[in-house]
């Protein structure tokens, strides 16, 4: 369903630096156990793809930013970034 107005936002949500990340610790230890000793740190976040309609890229980005602030990320412990591509 590619249209002039169809976009996809790829949103990356990660814990803020300094916030305890038990998932990351567990994955790091798991990788060490598999012999990947070169790994020093792992952080685990969310990767959210949002398909939406918008008149142009800028408008899409503005809406997605709002969605992040309101729902997709928890500003208390998380930070996010995203980019918008044609769907």
């Amino acid at each position: 369903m590619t249209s002039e107005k169809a976009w996809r936002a790829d949103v990356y949500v990660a814990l803020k630096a300094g916030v305890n990340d038990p998932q990351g610790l567990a994955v790091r230890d798991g990788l060490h156990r598999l012999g990947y000793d070169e790994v020093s740190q792992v952080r685990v976040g969310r990767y959210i793809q949002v398909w939406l309609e918008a008149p142009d890229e800028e408008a899409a980005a503005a809406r997605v930013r709002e969605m992040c602030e309101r729902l997709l990320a928890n500003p208390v412990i998380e930070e996010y970034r995203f980019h918008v591509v044609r769907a």
Partner: protein
Amino acid sequence: MRFAVITFPGSNGDHDALMAIQMGLGQPVELVWHTETDLSRFDCLIIPGGFSYGDYLRAGAIARFAPVMESVRAFAEAGGPVLGICNGFQILTEAGLLPGALLRNASLSFECAWVHVRVDNDRTPWTRALAPGTILRLPIAHGEGRYYADDATLERLEREGRVVFRYVDADGRVTPEANPNGSLNNIAGVCNERGNVVGLMPHPERAYDRLIGGDDGLRVLSAVLRAGVAAASRS
């Protein structure tokens, strides 16, 4: 018959499995820490429920690399009876000892309840002597129990009769309402090709005494005792 209960960091159903075998079945049983590699003294293995390594990446993903898992694999390949319960089921699928995967429940929330499952295959050591169609009442307690396999695998599982347990209503009917987690074809448990490795999401090891809600789980756990003759002759 000597049971092993394999314990990983974060397992929490190990104690229940131990109690079910000890108090419910009256059989000898040992907890086996994930770093052990010698399983030769056991006749059957239980991989219990819990949150191995917190289930932080995917349920069972990290546990499958534990040292004990090589021995579990060898034990299974030699035809020994292996039962994976809940997280144990997840570990066995991650390890490739059972087909498919277990995804987050369709409800997106953890589900703790007593459910009915129907035995659809009596050729595994864990269901021998349970006539197909037998309905068991067992507890479930999981957040990631939605059984998934791709179309080809699913078709093959059904064709080969390798769906061992299916969620049903009290009358044995397969209905969407009876499916607590959105599993494909209401699948609650499956087995490997040979039938000796079985995984299921419900907890037979929590149903060994009427005082705590039921004892249908003993019918699963004790089935292996009959299968024991075959297992003993294996070595």
